[in-house]
């Protein structure tokens, strides 16, 4: 995980004083893309989670389900990998749906701290105000010019996870650190995908 993103060693960077933001890599054990109109009904039995039908929201549990599109979701786990891919794929294929294993496709970073919103605003046009992008919200946009998937996983102030394609990981990490250096930042240790911190 760290190999693709190459985060700098932990420690405060930038201006002296308390860090404005803490950045760190997030470990993804499994990331499965579920598609198809038939998937929502099967999901609780197949994955133990509900697939959110409201756009740009996520549902939490042992498996986090992020809404990607009208009939497309990303299931994510941090610590324990998901099993029985092929059996579940076949079940979904039979029911008019699909399951793709994209566990290694994305790398993720988490930002939290008083200036996290501003660091994100340096590269992303979304409004991260908690009244607009509160806990449980997710959205697809860009960071700098790289496609990115954002999720507010809660906490106070809220922690925001940024997921980008693995090949862009190092550039996005650099972009986040550059933006964060204005406020001073800490690099936190790698930690598994957190699910929802507060619900």
């Amino acid at each position, binding site marked *: *995980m760290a*190999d*693709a993103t*190459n985060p700098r060693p932990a420690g405060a960077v930038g201006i002296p004083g308390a860090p404005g933001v803490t950045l760190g890599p997030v470990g993804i054990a499994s990331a499965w*893309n579920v*598609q*198809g109109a038939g998937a929502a009904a099967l999901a609780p039995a197949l994955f133990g989670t509900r697939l959110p039908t409201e756009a740009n929201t996520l549902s939490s549990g042992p498996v986090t389900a992020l809404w990607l599109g009208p009939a497309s979701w990303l299931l994510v786990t941090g610590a324990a990998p998901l099993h029985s891919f*092929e059996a579940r*794929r*076949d079940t979904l*294929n039979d029911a*008019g*749906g*699909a*399951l*793709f*294993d*994209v*566990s*290694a*496709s*994305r790398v993720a970073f988490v930002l939290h701290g008083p200036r996290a919103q*501003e660091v994100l*605003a*340096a*590269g*992303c*046009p*979304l*409004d991260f*105000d908690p009244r*607009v992008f509160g806990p449980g919200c997710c959205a697809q946009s860009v960071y*700098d*010019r*790289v496609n990115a998937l954002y999720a507010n996983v809660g906490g106070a102030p809220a922690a925001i996870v940024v997921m980008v*394609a*693995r*090949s*862009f*990981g*190092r*550039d*996005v990490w*650099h*972009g986040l650190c*550059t*933006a964060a250096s*204005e406020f001073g930042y800490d690099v936190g240790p790698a930690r598994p995908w957190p699910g929802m911190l507060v619900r």
Partner: protein
Amino acid sequence: MTVPRKPAPAQPFRLPHGGAIDRSQPLRFRFDGCDHDGFAGDTLASALLANGVHLVGRSFKYHRPRGIVAAGAEEPNALVQLDTGARTEPNVRATTIELYDGLVAASQNRWPSLRLDAGALASAVSRLLPAGFYYKTFMWPASPRGWRFYEHWIRRAAGLGVGASASDPGRYAHRHAHCDVLVVGAGPAGLAAARAAAASGARVIVCDEEREPGGRLRGVAGASVDGTSAPAWLAAVGRELAAHPQVTMLARTTAFGYYDHNLVGLVERCPGAASEHLRERVWHVRARRVVLATGAHERPIAYAGNDLPGTLLAGAARAYVERFAVRPGRRAVVFTNNDTAHAAALVLHAAGVEIAAIVDVRPDTALVGHWPGQARAARLPILAGSVVEQARGRLHVRGVDVASRDSGARCAITCDLVCVSGGWNPAVHLHSQARGTLRYDDALATFVPAAAAQAVASAGAANGCDGLAAALAEGHAAGLAAAAALDLVAVTPPPAPAATVATTGPLEACWSIPARSRGAPSFVDWQNDVTTADVALAVREGYTSVEHLKRYTTLGMGTDQGKTANVVGLALLAQLLNRPVQSIGTTTFRPPYTPVTLGAVAGHEAGPFLEPTRRSALHDWHAAHGARFVTAGLWLRPHSYPRPGETPDDAANREARNVRTNAGIVDVSTLGKIELQGRDVATLLDRVYVNRFDNLAVGRCRYGLMLRDDGIVQDDGTVSRIAPTHYLVTTTTVNAVRVMQQLEYLIQVEWPELDVYATSVTEQWCAAALSGPKSRAILARIVDIDVASAAVPFLAITRCTVNTPAGAVPARLLRVSYSGELAFELHVPADQGPAMWEAVLAAGEDLGIMAYGTEAMSTLRIEKGHIVVGAEADGRTTADDLGMGKLVNAGKWCIGKPLLSREALVAPDRWQLVGLTADEPAVPIPRGAKLVADPDRAAPNPMLGHVTSWCWSPNLDAWIALALLDNGRARHGTTLWAVSPLADARVRVRVGPPAFVDPDGERLRG
């Protein structure tokens, strides 16, 4: 180390008291090599004036001496070269440069010096250099060479500043922001609007280009708001807004562009001199409502010699006294057509500037407003019904000639300062950029906002409103209205700030005073040296549209975009055409409002971050093993792995040879990979590819060719059937995104009835191709399955496990070959790519395995005659041209097929893929060569084809190439010439089939 400060030289024009400057912070700066002192809070312009420096530049065309005219962003003249070396910035307005200690600036467009400028000869012959002179004059001799000669000298003479040639060490950034109400301008109207909107619960951003809020009210000690002095009210409101959790105050921030969907671009200048410092930040503000409180720009009146240094706009002269405690002169003549200049005269008078005369074009009976009354009461000499006909002086104004409009009586008045006011133009730039319309207001004699085209309203002077009390009331109302439009209403709305209303008399439109004799020109546009005579000439020559007038005379061009000049120029045009100004209209307002540096536009996306870079999961291994990288789209790929003493080409040749003798491994992770699932995938594939896929068995893979709608080859790749309803499609690296987009489009739009789902898995899989006669032996050592040909035949796909020191890695194994050798592809989850890669290399070490890069990969595929999309499939070739006509299945429809039978696509003289071998093997086939029958034939020499790919073949010991050749398949065995007029090279080549190595494919099936 601090250098002991020399005693501050006198600032002879600095007033002893007042001004919004910090006298406890003296600052030293250098202008044109001379040291001067100023104070924190000064601009470069105010500090220069405090030191009596008026002459700051030479004009663009005539090299006339020019001084400071304005006190803000509208300044047309005082453009300077700020800073030196890598941080230098040309054409910066001295009126907006905040003074800092150690500032270095220089005047522009002069040689050898500002006072003695050789270019000023142009002024002496200015009558010979009217608008458009070079269109007329430099047309002989009628050759491009002639123009190139003149252009060099014209550009040199009409230069502005000099751009930096070294890389800027400063940093730049971008920031996105969202708000309910964006208030542009923090003058009285803007502050009132921001306060009202914030009190209603709106998220507010307020930006102002100055370092502190207040606008024209700053330093105006005489005014009061809500019963307190204006400076105290400004300070209190500024503090209140800065502390408000819902309000973001942005100082030193110019709103430069208004775009669709209420997106407003701001540029924030960040103070500080450290070289690594953040210099500027561009804000992309998406506002639900916008209040434009951008104020107004004073306009001049044109008269002969109105450009002499010592000529200021009256409001600017007042601002220098009140805001900066600077006297812009000793003895002033004020020339006006409205009341505001009378107020300015009173301020100058109170500061000890002798008012020689207030020359007012209006008759005495029109001087009924508050300020003319005050001027009379102060016994300032008022010459009503009079005009300034001409100013005299060489490097500074020494006096003016004043004439009575009724009697024609003239008198000369000595002065060193002329303060001009022709009225005020609302700063409608952003309103107009937002595509709002304008209305000509006869009372104000200028354009004011009419209908808004986005969620925006103008308030205060920007809306043509007159006076402090009205501006406060209008701003307050605009703030409440903006919030109310978003259903945000205060429980108890705050009261509007109040100020005393001063009566004003009517303004009398006055644009230009006709010259009495052939004296100095009278300027409309100072920055572009456009005179009233130029406007008249343009009209005589038929340029009667405002847009033509602008382009012919350059009126309103340049860095100031005519902020002081445009309305005067338009009104003169209207007069000359005898039409109302409203019918003339304005030129189009486009962003930016003021110049924006390229650094700010780029933000941090510069140098290695100019565009995002994609790195394979194996990138660090490549880098650690000496890879020389090349870009492929956004990807960085290893070109080759040169060893000490090897050139990259040597290395590629070694690597390519080794693949054919031992084995090599290449990173092919960048290939596009798309997975498809569903009951109807085969149907979709049959429609997308020229060949059949409905009969592809599970565990098999097949080469596929994809056409565009017009029948031309679009992309190629492989299709593998992983499970009955699960397929893997590969695409070329460059077309990965395009093919994915097309498949999604087809599934969602064209054929939604198909049960097919797609996702890109390019990033999921790290892929390595293991090629060469020893590849199977190497593979057998590390995978858990039988890889003999019977178990894994050519074009099979299977699952396996790769044993690595880090543990077992699950993999997909494909038996495909691009090199033409026995080859396998291993696809493993990207995070486990390095473990797989190193395990393969370790397993093959004793068998001579080497990593190879894209250059060797290219050599191997050229030797084998495999096409590349982009080189051979160049957007003009059909499957048949590439020798793959038989792939097109006759029994089914596919995209592009209906148009394959077009006449042009079946013509007998189409260019077809062939192989070329250099007749003398050691002579390189020139890059991009054309194929001709006779290289000595005089031009035009018929071109029979061209080389698409070429390389030295280390396996054939010859230069070889692939080419597209007219009727190429019929020319096998013939010889032609590959010529490159650019490289002045020619080589005899033998034409043959495109496959040079193992044409029957025995190796890859072995």
